[in-house]
């Protein structure tokens, strides 16, 4: 595994959300990878072994719940911590996917950075 700043994988179908979060994390010194849906995220996890996944729930192709379920079946990769970022303000679904944290959009930038710092592996 490459040494250096922790890699955070951001998974969201909204291109501007992806761009904004990657900008925020990049400015704080994190490395970032991005995926537009769960299937693409599984490929990124396999290839890049992130230290944390920021996961939207409502996405095309494969949603966040299906992604989390598939991730848990992938041996050691299943232990990568997940923080759910959702426009649905109900945190129950984040609990259901075994997330370490939950942020309801629109969340504060500082709340995002605190969740990342607390959960990055």
């Amino acid at each position: 595994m490459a040494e250096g700043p922790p890699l955070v994988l951001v998974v969201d179908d909204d291109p501007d959300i992806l761009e904004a979060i990657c900008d925020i994390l990049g400015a704080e010194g994190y490395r970032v990878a991005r995926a537009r849906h769960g299937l693409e995220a599984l490929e990124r996890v396999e290839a890049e072994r992130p230290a944390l996944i920021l996961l939207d729930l409502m996405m095309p192709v494969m949603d966040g719940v299906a992604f989390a379920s598939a991730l848990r079946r992938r041996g050691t990769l299943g232990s990568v911590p997940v923080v759910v970022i959702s426009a649905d303000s109900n945190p129950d679904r984040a609990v259901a996917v075994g997330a370490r944290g939950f942020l309801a959009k629109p969340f504060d930038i500082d709340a995002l950075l605190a969740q990342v710092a607390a959960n990055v592996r």
Partner: protein
Amino acid sequence: MSNEPRTETPAPEGASEHLPNDKRSSFLGFSAHEIRNPLSTALWSAELLARLSSEERGGARGEKLSGMCLRALRRLKILVEDHFLSERLAIGGLPLRLEVVTVAEAIASIAGKAGVVNLSLDLPQGLAVRADRGMLEHALEALLAAAAREGAPVRVEGARADDEVRLKVRGAPPAPDALAMPQKGTPSDPSGRALALYTARRVAAALGGSLSASADAYVLALPIAADPH
């Protein structure tokens, strides 16, 4: 434009749709979901811009964040307008200013806003409807934007049929249930048009017409008006 005097009338009863609470809750939840994504981007990009020095704001990152903020606000504008228009139509609380509107003129005035790159018209000379111009343009913009999805060329075919005008808008084929009530759980629409077709259907009903979708076209039917010229 016609010289015929405008008349103000409340939206017809058929335009208002009193939804059962579970459907209404689902619609409001969907609207909130769609609004939260661009609202997030607008807030974050504005806050990041505020944290930059004046020199940094003029640089590449500042330019990127400014563009992001503007896109998000434009998307929000469309969503908020559609949401409140839909809500006002639902309670029949919107007075309509009916006048004779030439279809070709109405389309010409909104084609640019709808993002249509390749537009062709097949309209009988002087084809006109009796409608509220603003409402008609709102519905047409939604249909053209939907048909122009992913750069598809758009063709609008008009015809007189008894006492109504039928406009077929062809382009990217309508998605299954495209005009049904939007539901939570569907992917976000980055163009901000997630509520547009739903709202357009309500507008069509308010104007005394209808909006439907076939496999390859949206069909807007509106009350016919005599050729103003």
